[in-house]
């Protein structure tokens, strides 16, 4: 089956920053992404968990974004402008996709 090279960017970011991130991505011309829940975790600022939380301040999500290689710089610039001052982690991996015409 024919596949095409692409980049898979995963951004773990605070939930309160999610709409700011996706807005910045849209402005950078990136229009496809998915948001996955994160239950808890640990990092330099300690451990956290979603259990029983009602505060809107807690918790992170993972935004996954598959892009054509030539779009990666615009995407990273957009992501960086939002995560810069905030906690969060951005990983970029190589991948192949089916149906590249969809991107």
């Amino acid at each position: 089956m024919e596949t095409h090279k692409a980049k898979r960017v995963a951004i773990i970011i605070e939930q309160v920053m999610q709409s700011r991130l996706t807005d910045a991505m849209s402005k950078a011309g990136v229009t496809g992404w998915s948001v996955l829940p994160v239950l808890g975790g640990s990092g330099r600022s300690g451990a956290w968990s979603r259990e029983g939380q009602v505060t809107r301040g807690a918790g992170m999500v993972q935004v996954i974004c598959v892009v054509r290689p030539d779009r990666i710089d615009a995407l990273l610039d957009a992501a960086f402008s939002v995560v810069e001052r905030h906690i969060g982690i951005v990983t970029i991996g190589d991948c192949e996709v089916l149906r590249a015409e969809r991107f």
Partner: protein
Amino acid sequence: MDQILSLAATNLLSPIILSFALGVAAALARSDLNIPEAVAKGMSIYLLFAIGFKGGVSVADHGIDATLALSLVAGVVLSAVLPLIAFALLQVMGSLSRLDAAAVAAHYGSISIVTFVAATSVLSGSGIVSEGYMVAVAAAMEAPAILSALWLITRGGDSRRMDNDLLREIMLNGSIVLLVGSFFIGWITGVDGLAKIEAFIVSPFQGVLCLFLLDMGLVAGRGLRSSSGVLTPGVLAFGVVMPLVGATLGLATGLLLGVSTGGVALFMVLSASASYIAVPAAMRVALPEANPSIYLTLSLGVTFPFNLTLGIPIYVAVASALTGG
């Protein structure tokens, strides 16, 4: 004094306080007891809707008090002024950075709706009436403190922390909208409306509050376990002193406005309580460098239990004594 003690005793042995204590104990003992996030959020929506609605019905029933508008204005002023006092107090008592101090200050200017709910149930248990619009005052006090705390930081030469998106998020955060919205629904539909949904929002209210406080105890206990180290003795003391300072200001406000005994007590409770729903979110956006462990542990792990157990009986007793109610 006697009244305080007896109120405190009744209060401490009520199902809601014991449920909170159970949650704290379970978390400290590292039990895996936990309430799913969706269920906790569902209960908080229920409580906000119910308390807002009942406030509105009470206004519909008793008519608008001349002091409603004044009380709202007073609430906004209190919420804006309290962070300045908290910030100053933290400079004296604590060893927090300016950013951390401002973030904590924002929490103490704003309010904790569960503390308010717990207080109304102590009041109704003691047969003390209060103005139905106090729930609108509570809503009015949620946001100004955030703006006030951010002003403290930007005034200090820091870059701009506020934009239109954030302002909208703060003013239209879910709990304000639900509280104000259900207040108006209660007001419009009045006692007839209440009759239709009484079996949902009145009868089971105390029970839901128990489970909600169980959850808050679990979350507070987990926070204390993992973050107890972050609070210096000075900051810890702030978590008990600030509510008393706030309550005093609330008392003065209530007496000045001439509201009922219950109204005075609720002004004290609102001023004494610290936010843990809306403000943390705003702080993560505007002051990401401030350490959330500090403000969350202080608000939920220290001040909330203090108000719940000792604070509320004290405020109610003082309000009763000074209004002769």
